[in-house]
Structure formats: structure tokens, C-alpha cells
């Protein structure tokens, strides 16, 4: 029985991945181009909204296929957030899908290479996501977006977490938070058993259905955390270290 379930989950994962790719292609070839008749701001809003619903559907599909389950905690804190820096750890390939499926409109900082990815290019450029190119431009762009009331999702590790540990955080998110004086909201994601990490291939499914849990924490009191800092540079270091410790403690408490 276990064996059958294992093979089923390999097949189902294949189905899920293909439908993701297909969905991305259909949206970027048919729907996103149509959105370009709208003025830029409306177009971005529309595309971000459609990504939100597409990802909601995808998460639902994964659940129905029996590959995974999702547990949410503290989602109410996300309702109506505006101009907020949302930071999360990054254990799996699905984190961004999960995050965007619960946050209706948000910008993301995305690695530059995705603008060359045929499946995702249409989405990342259509939705006005922010390419991670030079650090200077990145900071200015993000500060502007936050001031306009956009939310931004960032993985401060810069890439997927290691299976058994967090990677050191980068200071981009903290520098941006301080420069724009925005709210900072940490979201902790856990995947049990670990799967879809950077090292694993998609068909190496775990020995049982995996559970993604997502916990929306309290907004951080940035002024309090950084009150003794002499300069903004030091403050961004202190804030980064503070958040890193928060995530580390969270991780430890789950084990």
C-alpha cells in the first residue's frame, strides 16, 4: 500500500509540475499580453492578482492530488497589509507559491535570471517584480515601491535554506526597511518531511505526504530593535541579526 502511495505521489508530483509549467505558459502567452492594454499600474495589479489566484489553485491542486497538506497560522495579520516588507525563510521551491497564494497583491525580489526563463519571464516582467541586479538600484526601487504602498516579499537568505539550517541573512531587506520606514512582518515556513530543496530532484518524493506550515508572526518593532544604533548601516546589521535569531529560535522550537 505504501509503495502504491509512493508511486502515486511521484506521478502526482509530475502532474503538478507539468500543470504549473502549462499554466505559466498559457497565462504568459494568452492572458498577460492582453493585460498590456491596461495602464501600467492597473496591468501590474491585474497580473499580480491573477498570479495570486493561479497559485491558490495550484496549492489546492497539490492538496487534492494528495502530495501535501498546508497548515496556516496567523493569516489574519496579512489582511489589508500595505507598504510592508514581508520576510520569510525559504525551505522549499514552493514557498513563494504559498506566500503569493495568501497575499493578494505584492511585489517580490526575484533573481535576475528568471527574466530569461521562458515559463516565468512573462509573469515576472508583467507583474512588475523587482530584479535583483545591482544593490543600489535594488534599494531605491524597493523603497519607492513600499512608499507607494506595495508590499514586498523577500527571502533574506537570498536562496533556498539548507535542509538542516538557515543560511546567513543578507542585509538588503533591513537596509530597505530602515530607509523606507516600513513595517516588517516575518513569516516562518516549515516543510515536514523536507522536500523540494535545492539539492533534491522533484521526483525524489519524501516517504510520506509533506506538510507545509506557515506561521505569520507579529510585526517587528523596528525602532525599538535599532534604538541604540549610531548609524543606519549599523542599524541594518542589528536588525538583520535580530531577525536571524528570531528565525533560528523558531526553527529550534519546531524540532
Amino acid at each position, binding site marked *: 500500500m505504501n509503495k502504491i502511495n509512493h508511486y502515486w505521489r511521484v506521478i502526482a508530483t509530475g502532474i503538478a509540475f507539468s500543470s504549473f509549467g502549462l499554466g505559466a505558459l498559457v497565462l504568459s502567452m494568452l492572458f498577460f499580453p492582453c493585460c498590456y492594454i491596461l495602464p501600467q499600474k492597473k496591468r501590474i495589479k491585474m497580473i499580480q492578482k491573477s498570479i495570486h489566484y493561479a497559485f491558490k489553485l495550484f496549492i489546492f491542486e497539490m492538496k487534492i492530488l494528495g502530495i501535501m497538506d498546508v497548515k496556516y497560522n496567523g493569516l489574519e495579520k496579512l489582511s489589508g497589509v500595505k507598504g510592508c516588507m514581508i520576510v520569510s525563510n525559504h525551505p522549499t521551491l514552493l514557498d513563494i507559491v504559498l506566500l503569493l497564494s495568501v497575499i493578494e497583491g505584492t511585489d517580490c525580489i526575484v533573481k535576475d535570471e528568471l527574466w530569461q526563463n521562458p515559463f516565468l519571464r512573462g509573469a515576472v516582467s508583467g507583474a512588475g517584480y523587482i530584479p535583483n541586479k545591482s544593490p543600489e538600484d535594488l534599494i531605491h526601487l524597493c523603497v519607492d515601491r513600499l512608499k507607494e504602498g506595495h508590499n514586498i516579499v523577500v527571502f533574506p537568505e537570498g536562496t533556498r535554506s539548507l535542509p538542516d539550517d538557515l543560511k546567513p541573512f*543578507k542585509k538588503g531587506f533591513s537596509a530597505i526597511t530602515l530607509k523606507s520606514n516600513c513595517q516588517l512582518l516575518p513569516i516562518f515556513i516549515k516543510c515536514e518531511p523536507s522536500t523540494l530543496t535545492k539539492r533534491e530532484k522533484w521526483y525524489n518524493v519524501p516517504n510520506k505526504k509533506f506538510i507545509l506550515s506557515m506561521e505569520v508572526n507579529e510585526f517587528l518593532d523596528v525602532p525599538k530593535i535599532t534604538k541604540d544604533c549610531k548609524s543606519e548601516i*549599523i542599524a*541594518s*546589521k542589528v536588525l538583520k541579526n535580530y531577525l536571524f535569531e528570531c528565525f533560528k529560535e523558531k526553527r529550534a522550537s519546531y524540532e
Partner: protein
Amino acid sequence: MKTREDVFEKIKETLIELFEIPEEDITLEARLYQELDLDSIDAVDMIVKLQEIVDRKINPEEFKAIRTVEHIVAITYKILQETK
């Protein structure tokens, strides 16, 4: 600043002032990203500060490949020699 040692002292001072890195950690061999906890965001601030020191614009491209304190010293020293 005449010698490489002078430049190193100045860089050290700058790193302490800007980033509050403990003095004993700053050696020529210290790796900026792994050992001194700096990242690309800090590199931007570092370049701004270095420009004040050498009184010249620095192309961020020149900084792409730096990995250790010694690299910063070498680049700064070179610029100072050139502008003499």
C-alpha cells in the same frame, strides 16, 4: 598615505567606524563576506566611503571581484598611486 601599511590602517579604521567590526578580526587575509559579515549592500557603503578617502570616483565594477581586506587595500593603493 604613502605606504600600503598606511592604507591598511585607514581601511581598518573605516571598517571599524562604518560597520563596528572588532579590530582584532581585521587582518589582511580576512574574508569580507564569510568572516567579517559584510555583503553587497555594505560594499556600496564601503565604496562611498573609499571615494572620500581617495577623492575620486570608484567604478563599482572594480569592486566586483574583491574577497579580502587585502583586495581593498590593493585597489585603494593602486588608485592613490595613479592619482599622484
